């Protein structure tokens, strides 16, 4: 097996085009899959030496997070906690300290497990993905990307993520069996636009209720443009249960998850709504 360690993005992309190889980020998924024989890449392109890909940058109207930024780095970033609180929260509870030190946000998308912790917050926050494809650079909403199969062609590099800086309030919660090293059995990310006592646009994304994380349009519609109060939360609880019921159909986990999601939703909104319902 060949192993490349490019120093620049262009070099990496070039290698991907000319060889039949897989990108290697932190390796917390890929190395495991190689170990179990689930994947047998012909060559690896280790992105670990490309400093540019790790950067977290504040642009005029968006925050750009490089695909190689680790969960630990994102979880320690003030920029992220200010602009994308839900994502910041997700980074605190993902895996374990050792995993967070290696696992990257790009790899989280690349692996795209149904329970990936990074994706619901990105979806709720309206993130776009910055790709480098055969044709060149491409910026595409994460929500649209998640509909395609395969996610990206083998030679497409996930360059990073752009999170619009719209001053959204956001929160994330996951339900795991333990307090650490817990794969999400359910996760909910909520982002809202606040206008005084009113909520403007609301986005709710769910994880571990389908093949991939998804943004629920139904929930967005049902919860946008209303007064933010107790009743709003209860309505959210009811709606989210309905959405999960429909999404899971008659899967074995459905009877449990469609009820339990209420608590996860409540937890997700708790991070920006204090008791009583008025804003912080």
């Amino acid at each position, binding site marked *: 097996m060949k192993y490349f360690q490019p120093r620049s993005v262009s070099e990496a992309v070039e290698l991907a085009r000319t060889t039949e190889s897989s990108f290697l980020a932190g390796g917390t998924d890929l190395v495991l899959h190689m170990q179990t024989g689930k994947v047998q890449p012909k060559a690896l392109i280790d992105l670990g030496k490309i400093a540019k890909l790790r950067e977290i940058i504040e642009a005029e109207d968006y925050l750009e997070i490089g695909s190689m930024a680790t969960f630990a780095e994102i979880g320690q970033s003030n920029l992220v906690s200010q602009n994308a609180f839900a994502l910041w929260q997700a980074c605190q509870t993902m895996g374990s300290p050792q995993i967070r030190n290696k696992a990257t946000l790009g790899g989280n998308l690349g692996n795209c497990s149904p329970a990936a912790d990074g994706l619901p917050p990105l979806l709720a926050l309206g993130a776009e993905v910055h790709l480098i494809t055969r044709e060149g650079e491409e910026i595409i909403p994460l929500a649209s990307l998640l509909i395609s199969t395969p996610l990206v062609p083998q030679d497409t590099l996930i360059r990073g993520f752009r999170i619009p800086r719209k001053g959204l309030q956001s929160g994330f919660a996951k*339900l795991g*069996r*333990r*307090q650490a090293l817990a794969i999400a059995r359910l996760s909910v990310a909520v982002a809202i636009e606040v206008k005084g006592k009113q909520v403007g646009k609301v986005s709710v994304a769910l994880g571990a209720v389908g093949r991939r994380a998804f943004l629920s349009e139904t929930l967005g519609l049902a919860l946008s443009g209303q007064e933010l109060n107790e009743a709003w939360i209860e309505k959210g609880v009811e709606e989210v249960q309905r959405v999960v019921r429909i999404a899971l159909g008659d899967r074995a986990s459905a009877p449990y998850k469609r*009820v*339990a999601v209420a*608590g996860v939703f*409540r937890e997700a909104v708790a991070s920006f709504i*204090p*008791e009583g319902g008025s804003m912080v």
Partner: protein
Amino acid sequence: MNTRVVGSRVVREDAWGKVFGQTKFPADVNLPDQLYGVVVRSPHPHARVRSVVIEQAMGLPGVVTVLTAKDVPSNSHGVLFRDQPVLAEYIRMVGDPIAVVGAETLELARAAANLVVVDYEVLPAVFDPEEAMTPDVLPLHPALRPTNVLYHMPIRRGSMVEGWARADVVVEQEYSTQHVDHAFLQPEAVLAHVDERGHMVVQTATQYAHYDRGEIAQALGLRFSQVQVKTMAVGGAFGGREDISLQIMAALMAWTTLRPVKMENTREESFYSHSKRHPMKMHYKTGATKDGKLVAMEARIVGDAGAYASWSINVLRKSAVHATGPYEIPNVSVDSYAVFTNNPFSGAMRGFGAAQTVLAYESQMDLLAKALGISPLEIRQRNMFKVGSTTATGQVLTGSVPLDQCLEKISPYLQSGVDSELVQLKLNIGESTPTEAEQGTPTVNSRKLSHRMKRRGIGLGCAWYGTGYGNGFPDVSSAFVEIHDDGSATVLTGAVDVGQGSNSIYAQIVAEELGLQSEDICVYTGDTDATPDSGTTAATRQTYNTGNAVLKAVRQAKVRLLDYAAHKFSCPTAEGIELEAGFIGVKGDPSRRMPLEDMVFQARLQGERFISAESSTALSTPVDLETGQGAPYWPYAFGCQMAEVEVDTETGLVRVLRVVAVHDVGKALNPTQVEGQIAGGVTQGIGYALLEELELHEGKIKNPAFSSYLIPTALDVPNIEAFFVEDPECTGPFGAKGLGEPAMLPTISAVINAINNAVGVRITSLPATPEKILAALADKKEELG
């Protein structure tokens, strides 16, 4: 008794090597030119092997050997019966080893293992013990038992007719528990080689080196004197290293190839190569009078033994004997069964049959308390064992029975918890006293919104545990002691330290007796060429039983030393001689004393040495086969715990916020280690009650990995406050009893009872998963309309 070293917080000598990463576990040793062995295991739960084709595997360059059943001189092993093949031709469970491949590298061995072609005749399998018990299911071990019922233990005491007649309230309930894995952190590994003496040397991690030696010798057709089993550091055991795993296969390959052989399990292989905790179904019916006295109890317990006998008989016997809980009940009828199925075999695991019944008997106690309108504490205090009580097997408890003291100590903690702030990850540093502990310092004050749906509750659990092999089985420990010329000493015993710290306990005992410090004592254990057989590190017996043997041995050497010194100092009797702080001399006469080393050295010049060998045998008698009457264990250890939990009524998640544990230890030989056993036990108890479950599909393990078989992490454990009651057990070394297993028992029921206290639902099957809790809450809502 005043002691200096015993009872103090002596630091474990082995801890240093471990913190520096120097300590060698079996995977950490290698020999030049070693082969790597990999096992081919059955994917079927029940099958006959028609043929094993090894040509393709052997064809791979670097593959040296493939061994199958026909290569094993005596193809069987097992702790009670030799019913388990080393390499199987007849498969009784998924994971049964069929062949073992030896190659120059591990990768090659793995690749070759995949090339071994096995032709199976798949047979119908049975997974439900109740079904397996029925007479029309063919027996899995016809040579052993005509049906799949491996064991039935009845206990009959008093008259059930009378008992039920006296009962004003009766509660009846079915309980069940799950398959559980030991999940010790170090996967099995072994290094075997034939040494320059022509002896078979096997380095491994085991709970009982001498037993392994016997199994290896038997299978290979060697004499015990030709086989050396040397225990490396043991990375946790909890019962899972009692049955032999890779050792015989590695030895066989080393013997046939005359090359060193290394074998190491992956975590997945580990799940398939050791026993499991017995799942049990327990049907209980318990009656009490209106003044809260228990008068009758009936229980039917069915344990899934899985594919092989292992310790199932002893486990289900322990379940039966402990079925009442630590309570006096005059009329008892228990039927306990161990049943063969095609599930993974069940064997020893911390708690050994008494861990399952604690769920049932302590739930029954809370149900009765509720029916009678008295507190959980009250009903236990009215029925608990005291000195002079008679157990269901008719055993009169003499000696140390301090459950009353344990309950008294815990009672201040049983006030209902405050339902406000969340106390998360509170470390309670230093010795806690009830008042200190009551205060509680919340470090995380999560937002209330998400807590609106959370309810708190507390629960009480009591337990008892008979230590030792029991039932009249000869329970012998042995030790050699030598006092050296420089006044230091060495203890040799077969008893393996599996991590619990028995070695430092022996050092303390010897140091105490000889007036030395524990650093002056060398403890060497678990090497069959050098140490005497001291039984298995199980049944909570090493502190008590081997502790006794060590104490007897050092006392024997000491008697000779004192006699010699008396003569030397012209003191009329040895009673006038004392050993203190490295000196030996006449009591109260500072002019007639000398350094111990001078005395021992002078003695040597006169041909006198202070060396001893001793054994100690624990007492128990077999129970009557029809009535279960007898004195099956001694001593019994008692304990109680309080758990405070928080239940999220929307997600069903349970967090254990706090556990207070009070345990009877006779005498704490080393308080640090007692606390360590309690915290470890509590955490395993929490795992058992809430998280852990081996998921099986037709005998195949669906979660043979730490990512799917979940054990608690550092963030899942509550603040644990440990107390112990010291009521000396006169037969124990310095009054000590064991604690290893009892420590996890009360946790299980304390957590389950706390859930009930918090949200009013009773979980009767372990683990208490969020699914079960939500389903129970939904049922309750329906009932209430």
